[in-house]
């Protein structure tokens, strides 16, 4: 079966810093993949390349077996329109109230009329456990956990076939982290979507992922089922998942 998403030989350098040095990744339809890796290892850059926010230097990105580079602009945008993304810091539009944030993608696509958008947004908010009254607040009035929920609501509102989550639990307390993970798993299951989540939180990785992959020095150095994260037998993964100071990973303190 063709994977929903496939990345081959993806390379990206900023100046003389080679951030991605040939990333290969496959995600089967309806499954979820967690990508783990240290801070600054290029996880966000990987997602942004796939979404088209960063132009990769080299490499092939396929959705449903179609190479995006081979499509014209409109067809490529249409393929990418199936991707919903939860950004690392929420990236909520602070000039708009919460409900307009949630309905933004639907309104932009003309999938819902302006007068129905509010009700639709409230339904999506309810799915992430937020009351309808939150819709009137401004994003800056929300706590970190609520911002993550709104970001999640915005990402799932258009019911995307592929969902990206960039460090969904970073900056949250463990309980809120578990709740957000639960919401993510629920949403992905209910919509039958394919998901890619980035995290460096092991508990979160095993809750969200069917499969896991480790990004290190610009490459995927290990991939397996997520339950093997803690007994992978791979020295790099072991050091990372167990948080050991000694091991093959040299934390970059200088650029």
């Amino acid at each position: 079966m063709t994977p929903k998403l496939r990345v081959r030989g993806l390379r990206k350098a900023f100046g003389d810093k080679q951030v991605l040095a040939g990333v290969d990744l496959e995600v089967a339809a309806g499954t979820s993949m967690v990508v783990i890796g240290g801070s600054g290892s290029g996880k966000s850059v990987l997602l942004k390349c796939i979404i088209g926010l960063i132009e990769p230097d080299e490499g092939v990105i396929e959705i449903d077996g179609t190479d995006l580079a081979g499509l014209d602009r409109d067809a490529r945008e249409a393929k990418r329109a199936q991707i919903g993304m939860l950004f690392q810091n929420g990236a909520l539009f602070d000039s708009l109230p919460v409900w307009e944030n949630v309905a933004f993608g639907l309104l932009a696509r003309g999938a819902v009329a302006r007068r129905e958008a509010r009700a639709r947004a409230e339904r999506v908010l309810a799915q992430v456990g937020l009351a309808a009254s939150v819709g009137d607040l401004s994003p800056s009035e929300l706590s970190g956990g609520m911002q993550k929920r709104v970001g999640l609501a915005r990402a799932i509102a258009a019911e995307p076939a592929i969902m990206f989550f960039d460090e969904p639990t970073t900056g949250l307390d463990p309980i809120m982290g578990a709740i957000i993970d639960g919401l993510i798993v629920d949403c992905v299951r209910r919509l039958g979507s394919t998901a890619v989540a980035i995290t460096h939180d092991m508990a979160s990785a095993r809750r969200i992922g069917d499969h896991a992959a480790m990004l290190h020095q610009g490459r995927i150095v290990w991939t397996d089922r997520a339950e093997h994260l803690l007994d992978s037998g791979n020295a790099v993964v072991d050091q990372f998942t167990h948080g050991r100071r000694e091991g093959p990973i040299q934390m970059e303190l200088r650029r």
Partner: protein
Amino acid sequence: MNALLDALAGTGRSALALCQAAGQLALFGLAGLFHVLRPPFYGRMVLRSMLDIGYFSLPVVALTAIFTGMVLALQSYTGFARFSAEGAIANLVVLSITRELGPVLAGLMVAGRAGAAMAAELGTMRVTDQIDALGTLSTNPMKYLVVPRLIAGTIALPLLVVIADILGVLGGFIIATLKLGFNSATYLRNTLDFLETDDVVSGLVKAAVFGFIIALMGCFNGYNSRGGAQGVGAATTSAVVSASVLILAFDYVLTELFFSR
């Protein structure tokens, strides 16, 4: 010798950086103009920007215009008093305001107010990934953020300048009649007699160009800002400074075009 070479290399690098920035700016402006013509159009965003740029700048621009008109009348009186040239004062006030000071001062004030605010808003959106988020929600950030501001700037500034012109002349009128004791009917007649359509129109064309420049510099610097709060601060400063310098430069160019024929 080495110090000299270093200095030369530094100058060369700055010159190259300047050329690169100018090229990027030109591409950004062209991309903006290209998107103006292609749907979707965001009317609500245009209206919002018109409010920001035009309506909320009214008090500053109004005060600037009135005081400038008053000062012009007062200054020229001390110069022209010996010839007791009432007509000359009315003439000087109305021509200076409509041709030059109205558009230029309004432009500089709006650059400081609205241009800075645009750069700060877009810069913050850039560094908090909000601009990237737009792209993932089927919205072209150029069309949604930049185009409405360019349109609003180009329309709002001429409207502001019409008001500035009127208030500037009013400022001169107040000083001329209340302080200098001129006859108000004569002063008004002189003002209107000297004024030609071309004076006003050239001022409004200048204003439209300045409005475009302010929005372009605000958007360009904000859109391309990097590196957190400090980057946003730098973008804001550079939006105001570059817009102000460009306004004065284009003022010269446009004056040359209009009046040296």
